[in-house]
């Protein structure tokens, strides 16, 4: 942006606002039809047919140039009922019905995730949504499945169910309760939205594995991703932003999350769905009817939407920048599980530098919680064990001696010589990246986390204990 506006003499002019362009009477592509949409990224007014061809072309070229799609692939397309995700199904369907050489060769299945539990939606409404969703997918003839957000709490058994015309929502009361507790446990909307995003990602991966799909398609547009970039930066997820906003999220070894709409804006995709008269079902989520300052995600959304309105070309600048900001040491390909965040699978980078912002945050949390008179030279060695503010090392040594109570409601054998212990905040936080720690910090207690996550904490802790106890023998 800046370089484009640099004057020859080195002075900079102010960023250009939206200019009222005088439009020709005809489409700038075919020069015959009346234009019906203004596409700002390319400063063109297109007629309906040229516009639809443009969207279709963008979608195909995004997939094509990635060179990632193989004919044997089975893709799991995430469908939320929104116009945007319906547009994605429509584009996929169009690609699969093309003539010979242009036809997509991969197969498509569709997944709908029921999130009604966290909003307290009634079972009738959730079932009605489910059936409406199945009605839409049916038109395309894709094989479809549904799962619930609560399935993240289930240990065994199948979690995805075929979605057919008269499907009724199968829910398991206790996992629903656990899910509700988890969200009640998290105080701020910012942390709840972030948690929901991480859980959704887990559900995508878990379902894709169950259904033998190697790729998940999500309907995020460039506008959505620009919002994610600003949210990620604000939430301390800068180092993983690259994975959150680029074409492919490679964090999981066997399932890749692909964003085939990332070269199209929300406006383009929405117009596509309007022109094709695609049906959409609005299913409320956490941010529904929330005001724009209610969470970091909503504020980023408001900010990007206002940019879009007043300085449209800057949005793609935000997006392009974020896409390029991959740091060299964030590729996980050769990492072992041991080194990854238990929630988002990001490489743990939180114990590296001596003066990292993680430590600064922890330290300032500790000082703030003590108040002006509370801090003296004994503070660090006297960390109360109720204090969630951790200065990792001190707190850890304290907890080793104080947390001997048995975790009676757990029958998981951790394999260590001690009894299974209740997991403390530091235990869990140690295994989380900076961004996920902020979610944990916002929780009342850690026991409401899904068992799959807690299990990882226990295993990795007992491994560590074992390593410690045999350390003296390893010389």
């Amino acid at each position: 942006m800046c370089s484009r506006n640099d004057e020859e003499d080195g002075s900079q002019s102010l960023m250009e606002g939206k200019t009222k362009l005088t439009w020709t009477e005809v489409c700038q592509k075919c020069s015959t039809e009346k234009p019906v949409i203004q596409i700002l990224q390319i400063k063109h007014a297109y007629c309906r047919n040229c516009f639809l061809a443009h969207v279709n072309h963008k979608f195909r070229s995004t997939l094509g140039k990635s060179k990632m799609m193989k004919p044997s692939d089975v893709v799991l397309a995430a469908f939320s009922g929104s116009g945007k995700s319906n547009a994605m199904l429509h584009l996929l369907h169009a690609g699969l019905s093309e003539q010979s050489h242009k036809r997509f060769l991969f197969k498509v299945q569709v997944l709908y995730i029921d999130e009604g539990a966290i909003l307290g939606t009634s079972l009738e409404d959730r079932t009605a949504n489910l059936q409406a969703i199945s009605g839409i997918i049916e038109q395309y003839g894709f094989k479809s499945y549904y799962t619930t957000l609560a399935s993240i709490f289930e240990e065994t058994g199948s979690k995805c169910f075929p979605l057919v015309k008269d499907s009724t929502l199968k829910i398991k009361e206790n996992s629903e309760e656990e899910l509700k507790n988890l969200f009640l446990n998290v105080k701020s909307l910012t942390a709840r939205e972030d948690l929901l995003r991480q859980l959704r990602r887990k559900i995508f991966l878990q379902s894709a594995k169950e259904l033998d799909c190697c790729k998940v398609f999500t309907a995020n547009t460039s506008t959505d991703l620009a919002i994610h970039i600003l949210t990620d930066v604000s939430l301390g997820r800068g180092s993983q932003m690259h994975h959150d906003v680029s074409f492919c999220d490679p964090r999981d070894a066997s399932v890749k999350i692909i964003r085939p709409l990332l070269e199209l804006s929300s406006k383009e995709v929405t117009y596509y769905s309007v022109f094709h008269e695609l049906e959409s079902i609005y299913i409320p989520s956490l941010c529904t009817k929330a005001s724009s300052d209610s969470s970091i995600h909503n504020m980023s959304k408001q900010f990007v939407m206002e940019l879009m309105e007043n300085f449209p070309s800057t949005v793609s600048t935000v997006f392009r920048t974020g896409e390029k900001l991959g740091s060299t040491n964030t590729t996980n390909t050769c990492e072992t599980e041991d080194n990854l965040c238990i929630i988002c699978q990001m490489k743990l980078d939180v114990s590296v530098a001596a003066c990292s912002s993680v430590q600064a945050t922890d330290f300032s949390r500790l000082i703030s919680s003590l108040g002006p008179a509370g801090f003296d030279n004994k503070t660090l060695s006297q960390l109360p064990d109720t204090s969630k503010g951790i200065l990792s090392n001190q707190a850890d040594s304290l907890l080793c001696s104080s947390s001997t109570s048995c975790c009676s409601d757990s029958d998981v054998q951790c394999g260590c010589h001690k009894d299974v212990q209740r997991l403390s905040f530091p235990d869990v936080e140690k295994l989380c990246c900076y961004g996920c720690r902020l979610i944990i910090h916002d929780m009342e207690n850690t026991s409401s986390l899904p068992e799959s996550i807690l299990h990882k904490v226990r295993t990795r802790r007992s491994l560590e204990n074992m390593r410690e106890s045999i350390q003296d023998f390893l010389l």
Partner: protein
Amino acid sequence: MSQQQGLEITLEFGGGAELLFGNLKKHQVTLPACEGKWTIRSLLTWMKDNLLKERPELFIQGETVRPGILVLVNDADWELLGQLDYEIEAKDNILFISTLHGG
């Protein structure tokens, strides 16, 4: 030119914007006769007073729609039609569609 009879138009909502209008996606309305022409600008004021059921700030910001809500007049982008200054005609179909819902 003043309009003697009311102006009959169709208002449609999508992408979640309908939640603010009694969860109804389609409204047939008759705008009362007024001095001069109805524009989208005056329509928005009228909607705020007569149609919006709750939380006006989620739909209207200043004198225009909240950023992120697209406006289409007879299936065409209002940005090509003069936006707030577009003069509404009888039987027009005006669609307000929110893009604020995530993927």
